Structure formats: structure tokens, C-alpha cells
């Protein structure tokens, strides 16, 4: 009970840093408050662009691999490889060989985002009832039409869950973008000598909240884009549920 309370003053400082701002530790510089807005915008733009590029690459690729059932091992391996390379190591690699800046770090984030999106799209596509696809083909849909009209919409909820995971990872990882000279919300965290402990904590909390909000928002989007037919329950089952409820209310 006592421990959290002891932390409170620091949160108050962090709160003030985020919403009001103040002078930097080094002096002469306005930090926090409105000065955070460019960082926030940068953070969001960097994340959005990276995820968008990753989606454009991974979704069609995943659909194609899933549709053709080609390279089951590939999708899995890319994923494992992707997960195995920590972004920090990637950054070192990129800074050394490609350079710094928005594009270079964006590329890191894209590479980070691709595996979960690729896997989820691949899994989504391969998990569709083979009979549904067989019926579609048997009725004369071309392979492209099967992809667009059957496999993509049916796999969309699963695909989107991958996008959501990737987005959260990207937003969190964009925090270390300042290593590559891209000023995101990671700046106050990585430069406590300028922004002070209040800045460090404030920005960290801000990033955490941002991730949660984005995750929740995308969750809502996922619900919204799930085809209605996939959410509906069979009449038997529904009747069963009502019957159970009725039986219960009757016995009590």
C-alpha cells in the first residue's frame, strides 16, 4: 500500500511534463508539453507508414502462399527468423550498412511487422474450409476471384489480428527510433540527461497508453470488419441456449 504512494510524486512530475512541459535539464530548452507533439506525430507517421508498407507486402504474399499451399515451411521460417532477430540488433546492422533516418528505421519496422502479418494471413487462408474453396472453384471462379472474394474476406479477421499484433510491436519499437536519428516519443526516454526522469517516465507512460489505445481501436476495427455471417450463430445452437436459459428460469 505504501510503495505505490511513494511513487506518486514522480507521476505527478511526469504528468506535468507531458501536459505542461518545462525547461530542459540542460537548460535553455523547452521540453515536454506542446514540444512533444512533433515527436508524437513523427512516432505515429513512422509507425503507420511502416505497418502500411508491411501490410502491402505481407498480405498479398501470405494470401498467395496460402492459396497455393506453397512453402508452408517458408512462412513459418520467415516468422521464426523475424522473431529471432531483435530489433536492436537490426538497427545496429542498418545504421552500419544503410544509414540512419526515417527510411532506414522505417525499413527496420517493416521487417519487424511483416512476420506476424504474413503468418496470420497465411494461416487465415489455409484454415478456410477446403470445401468452400472447392465449391468456389467448381462454380467457375478464377483463382484470382477465389483469392479476392472468398479467401481474403473469410481470412480477414485472422489476418487483421496479425496486423494488430504487428502494429503494437511497431509502435512500441518506434520508441528506439532516435538511435537512427528519427525523433519519436523515444527521445525523452533515451535522453534523460536532457528531459529528466519526469520526461523519461512521462514519455514511457505515453507510449504505453498509445499502444493500448491503438490495440483497443484496432480490436474494434477487427470486430467491425468481421463478416456478419461469421459472427452469427446456428439456429440450433441459439435455440439450445435460450432453451437452457428458460429451463433455468423455470427451475428457479
Amino acid at each position, binding site marked *: 500500500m505504501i510503495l505505490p504512494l511513494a511513487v506518486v510524486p514522480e507521476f505527478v512530475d511526469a504528468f506535468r511534463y507531458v501536459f505542461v512541459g518545462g525547461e530542459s535539464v540542460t537548460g535553455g530548452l523547452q521540453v515536454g508539453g506542446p514540444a512533444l507533439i512533433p515527436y508524437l506525430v513523427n512516432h505515429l507517421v513512422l509507425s503507420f507508414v511502416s505497418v502500411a508498407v508491411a501490410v502491402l507486402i505481407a498480405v498479398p504474399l501470405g494470401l498467395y502462399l496460402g492459396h497455393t499451399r506453397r512453402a508452408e515451411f517458408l512462412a513459418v521460417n520467415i516468422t521464426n527468423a523475424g522473431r529471432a532477430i531483435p530489433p536492436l540488433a537490426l538497427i545496429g546492422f542498418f545504421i552500419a550498412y544503410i544509414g540512419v533516418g526515417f527510411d532506414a528505421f522505417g525499413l527496420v519496422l517493416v521487417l519487424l511487422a511483416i512476420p506476424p502479418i504474413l503468418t496470420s494471413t497465411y494461416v487465415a487462408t489455409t484454415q478456410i*474450409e477446403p*470445401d*468452400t*474453396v*472447392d*465449391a*468456389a*472453384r*467448381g*462454380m*467457375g*471462379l*478464377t483463382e484470382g*476471384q477465389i483469392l479476392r472474394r*472468398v479467401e481474403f*474476406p*473469410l481470412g480477414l479477421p485472422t489476418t487483421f489480428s496479425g496486423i494488430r499484433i504487428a502494429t503494437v510491436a511497431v509502435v512500441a519499437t518506434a520508441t528506439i527510433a532516435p538511435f537512427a536519428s528519427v525523433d519519436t516519443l523515444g527521445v525523452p526516454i533515451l535522453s534523460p540527461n536532457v528531459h529528466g526522469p519526469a520526461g523519461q517516465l512521462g514519455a514511457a507512460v505515453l507510449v504505453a497508453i498509445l499502444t493500448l489505445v491503438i490495440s483497443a481501436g484496432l480490436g474494434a476495427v477487427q470486430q467491425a470488419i468481421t*463478416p*456478419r*455471417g*461469421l459472427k*452469427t*450463430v*446456428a*439456429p*440450433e445452437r441459439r435455440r439450445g441456449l435460450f432453451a437452457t436459459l428458460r429451463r433455468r428460469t423455470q427451475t428457479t
Partner: protein
Amino acid sequence: MNASDPAQTSTASPAGRQAATLELRDVVKLYPGQEEPAVDHLSLEVPAGEICVLVGPSGCGKTTAMRMVNRMVEITDGDILVGGQSVTDRTPYELRREIGYVIQQVGLFPHLTIADNIATVPKLLGWDRDRIAARVEELLQLVQLDPEQTRDRYPAQLSGGQRQRIGVARALATDPPLMLMDEPFGAIDPINRERLQNEFLRLQVELRKTIVFVTHDIDEAIKMGDRIAILKQGGRLAQYAEPAELLMNPADEFVKDFVGNDRALKRLALQRVRDIDLWQAPMVRKGETTASVRQKLEKADVKIPLLVDEDGCPIGWLSDRAYAGEEVKADLRSRAEPTVEMDDILRDALADLLGSELQYGVVVDEQGRATGVLSIELVGQGVHGVAPARTGADALAT
């Protein structure tokens, strides 16, 4: 495929598209990496408007044979002609759009409404919206579902039997000249299966599609088929015949075993002669004028006059000479023996028919008076469990 063609819009009627003939010529399918072909030199001809049932034990190549027709499986050797045209000359997806396709698991699109499911192929063909809506309505009625209630539902909201009906409606959407059905009622419980079968047969009387129907159930085959192709392991044709013929003259031991004498006969034992819509023979008496006989012959199902006595009890089938002169003479080609009673079960009646020379059995009532004629065709149709269409008589007349 002209959207403004009115003949194309009302297609549930017999005025719809002509059914196509189907011909398999020495078709072989060898799956890559397999030693033995799945289908081995299979030749079949299915006349337009008939149901051809492919039946046989599991793994004998029924599905493979069926799927080669719409090129879901590529033919290794031989040829398949739909309406006289080789399927290999056509782009697979274009070919498939003209062939109805129903599978056991139905394969409805779970993310689309029932209306959109049915509209799949019409949309591919670019029909306009009004025409599609009208067609969906018509098809839902055709498969006995209420359009208002069903149209906007999703597959998950329907029962298995309803989904199966939608599957059939979807396959019929563009009124295809040929339908392929792979165990379409296989996943349905026996009572509903029976109902769906009967419903489908009634529908077929109206639609007259050429249909390839796959099943592993010989009873279903006998019930549904105008012709039955029994396949052996390795996709070899054991016998291709009409159901009645198959029951009576199995080509070999395999067919005999597969048909399972007693199983088929059990079905015959379930029905009595009075359940059958009998044929009528022209009943004539000795001394009757031949003009009147000829007149009766015209209207009758059976084109041979039956001589009866004063009480109407059958005496025998007249020979041609018997009514060549002015008056009917008692010149018989065969005696009306044995007779069949209304309450005889079909199995016994069939046994009697097989013994008679003409393969017609005169049915008599309690007083022994002739009331109709039972034929082998009628028994065959009786096994189907539907009111017999008088195809046998039609065939005799032509």
C-alpha cells in the same frame, strides 16, 4: 447469355435451357505418383435430361470421374463431351460456370447471405441486379424455402437440410444444362435425406437436367438414377444400366454383391401393387369390332390388347392376327398368366413378371377382374418411390 433475353430469366420452367448430353470416352485418370489409375477406361453416355448415378465402394473413383467432367480433375487420357463438345476445348472456369456443382459439404460461402450465395455465378456472368433478385426469389421458391425469410440470412443460420437446398439452388442459378452432384445428401440424417431425395426428384421432373449423381449408397442410386453406373475399385465400370435392369440382370458377381439382392428386394417388399400407378391395357372382348380395338389401342399405355371375358376377367394377350379381320378372334400370343393382385408386394409381383413371356402382369381385383397392368418399368419406378412418369409407355408408343 444476353441479360435482356426473357427466355433466360424464367428458367425454372421446362422452357429453360436445353439439357446437354454427356459422354465419357475411354476416360483415364492417373494421379501423379500413383501406380494404378483412379479411373480406368471409363465410357458412359448419359442422354440429355437423365440422372446418371455413379455408385461403388469407397475409393473406386466416383468423385474423380465426376470431377473430370468440369475439369476439377484433369483428364489423363480419353475425352469427355458435354453437349457434343470436348471439355478440353474450353477454359476450365468458363466450362464450370455452365455446369451446376453440388458437393456433400455444400460449401456455401459463410460470409455471404443466402441471396449472394445463390447469385454467385450470375454475378460472375454480369447479370443486372433486378434479374439476379428475380432469379434468387424464383430459386428459393423452387427449393421450397420462403424467400422473405431466407434471402438475407447467413449459412450459419440455416439447418443442414436448408443449406443443402441452397446448395442445389445455387447450382441451378444459371439454369445449367448439366449438373454434377457429389453425395449431395450424404451428410443429412436419413429422414431428411429421404425428403430431400423426393423433393429433388419432383424438381427433376420439372427441370429435366442432365445430372451426374455420385453416391456410395446403392439404395439411393436405385432411387435417384435413370441409369446407374457401378464402378469397381480402380475406376473400372462394372455395369451401366437402368435400375430395374441392374436389379434383375447384374452383370457379374461384383455387381450382384454390391446391389445386394436382399437389400434391393427389401425395398420392393415395402411396396404393394396398389401403391403403383398402373398402366392401362386396351381390354377387349371376343367378337368386338377391330375398329373399336384400334381406337382403344390409341389411348392405352400398353399397345397390346388384352382379351377379357364377360366379367372382365383376363384371358390373355391378343396376337396381331386376332384383330386383323372385322371382329376380334380369340387368337392369343400368350395367356394372361400369372396374374398379380393389388395387395401383392412388389417383390412377389416382380418375380411373377419375370416368369411371364411379355413381362407384363395383369393386375386383378378381389373379384378377379383386370384393373391394370404392371410392367417391369413400373416396378423399377416403384422402387424410386415416386409417381411413375409413363416413360415406359411413351417409349413403347414411339
